């Protein structure tokens, strides 16, 4: 499916289940999400993390509702399943889309300004660098007799500074490689929206409405 439309669909589904209270639809969506995730053949460790991490907020939320509010068991189950639906649908979108395809699609199909599209891609490429940079900053602190804890502002000051520096370098690098904001560019890889992309988007949304509406009637 076209990456931009896929992203849009994911966001619309998430929005819709935020305002409805059907645990069966949530569960259904989570299961569908899970199946899509499995088809992308994730690493086992990553998959297990996906199962376990949402458990913490899901359980916490459900417990809080059960103990502190009189909204009842039904609402607790709705919240519990909703978290899993969010996470699995979100992961289904991201794990089946390459980040560069998404950026190209956002630029070509959704007409997001290319500055944002490539800025986003650049920032994404920087993520692993930020992790190692934080390690280096902490080591640099220790080497000067200064312990930088996770909560110390200096650590963040340095990390932000490094990011600002990178973003400026990135902008200069893009400019020196001929990038000009809003100027027409050619595309090596064309990303198209085909009729079945629209059909999938609309079809899924229609089915979702029927599911919610149908369950509501019962």
């Amino acid at each position: 499916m076209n990456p931009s439309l896929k992203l849009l669909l994911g966001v619309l589904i998430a929005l819709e289940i935020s305002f409805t209270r059907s645990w069966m639809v949530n569960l259904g969506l989570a299961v569908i999400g899970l199946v899509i995730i499995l088809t992308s053949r994730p690493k086992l460790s990553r998959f297990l993390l996906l199962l376990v991490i949402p458990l913490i907020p899901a359980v916490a939320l459900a417990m809080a509702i059960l103990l502190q509010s009189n909204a009842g068991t039904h609402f607790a189950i709705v919240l519990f399943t909703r978290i899993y639906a969010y996470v699995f649908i979100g992961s289904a979108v991201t794990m089946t889309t390459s980040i560069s395809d998404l950026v190209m699609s956002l630029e070509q199909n959704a007409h997001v300004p290319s500055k944002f599209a490539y800025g986003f891609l650049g920032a994404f490429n920087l993520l692993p660098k930020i992790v190692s940079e934080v390690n280096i900053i902490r080591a640099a602190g220790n080497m000067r007799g200064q312990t930088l804890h996770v909560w110390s502002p200096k650590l963040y000051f340095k990390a932000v500074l490094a990011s600002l520096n990178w973003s400026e370098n990135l902008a200069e690098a893009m400019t020196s490689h001929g990038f000009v904001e809003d100027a027409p560019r050619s595309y090596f890889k064309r990303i198209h929206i085909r009729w079945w992309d629209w059909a999938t988007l609309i079809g899924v949304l229609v089915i979702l409405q029927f599911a919610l509406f149908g369950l509501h009637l019962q």
Partner: protein
Amino acid sequence: MPTIKVDHLSFSYPTESGETPLTLNDISASFPSHHFSLLTGASGSGKSTLMKIISGLYPQFGGRVIAGQITLDGNPVPDIPETNRGRLVAMMFQNPNQQFAMDTVEREVIFALENQHVAPSEMMSRVTQALRYVEIEPLRHRNLNSLSGGEKQKVALAVIIAMQTDTILLDEPFASVDPEARQLLLAKLSQLQRKQGKTIIISDHDLEDYGQFVDELFVLDATGEHLEQLNHETAQNRLQHFSREQNNTIHFELPTTAEKTLYTGRDLSLQAGERTLINQPELGFFQHHITLLTGPNGSGKSTLLSAMSKLHDYGGSLTFNHKEVAKIRPRQLYRQVAMVFQDADQQFLNVTVEEEIALSLKNSQQHEYFKSRLSRLLTSLHLDQLQDHVVYTLSGGQKKKLQILEMLMMATPVLLFDEPFTGLDLASMQQIMAVMKQVATDCQLTLIIISHQLFGLNQLIDYHLTLANKKLEYVEGLA
């Protein structure tokens, strides 16, 4: 007919208080087209600034033109539409890590071609040609982050070649490039100039190897007040008499078995991604000595220092004072071992020069020693006038000097230096080496230094360790 004309140019990086100290002060020169020009000058003289103004990056990304202008074929640079600029002038940066926006080599070249509105059907052949020209076809699908400094500079040149730019500016492009890659890049640039009529302007403080390539030599003085084109004889004279080293006669001792080893490696292996860098059955570094570590670009020198300071994983065993490095707690290790990073910005923890110095003095393991010598050290390194400057606004050379000084001041028993002399001119390098030698002797430090820059190093070092083909070996010669 001159293409690039610098016309009474004054340029400033305005300070927060609104002052405009001039980095370049009323300079003029003409860089002839289709020539190979070399721009030299002390570190901090404003070479990078001038290059970035010519390329149009400044004042767009910083600073202000106070007076004068630069013209390309008679057109002032800021008046040239940005969309045409990429065809006219492109720049290769000093820091190889700062020039790419994409993740892989191929995508970066394609990105540049897309920006130039090249037809998609043409792109693949242009990518292939450019990569072939600089002999890096095997790197085509590699991730840019996994490349060495020299490889990155080759990719940067390939991008410029694919863009078919008329004028190529290179700002200290060889600072972190080994001699072989440097030779190849210089030969390719010269070929581009002779065969395709490109205009090449390189800034470098190191004039070695340029003699046979250079048509014009320009000198920017230390204060940024005079930009002078030397006449042919003076230029040739200067190029020929600049010699970094007479290495052949230098002889080093080999470490004896009686020496006390500080670091010991057994079956040590280091990886970068999937690539094995080092595979070493036995390795030792010796206490109270200064060891030089050399080897080709990307061979794993920096990675070795990173492993020794617990910033990179390793296989096999690596012990420091008989304790496995992986098992030593970071805080403990870093009281014994400190690293002088290749990128000076990574070292700084504070905002101004004064604060940086104060922090090192406060936590120094030789507080009294440095307290009495500090002002003299600052003066000898020309840092005394810069106390209230923000460290990130210093020139590359000034940053390096400050960084080395503040780490020496910590007087950590073992100091690892990763390319400490990058961006330093000869005079600065000699000053800083003298300080290193003095401190190492007085405070009984162990120094391990990676350097491509070999000139004058024989005064400083005791042992020379080389890394090639995944093996480390102590040798007697320097070259």
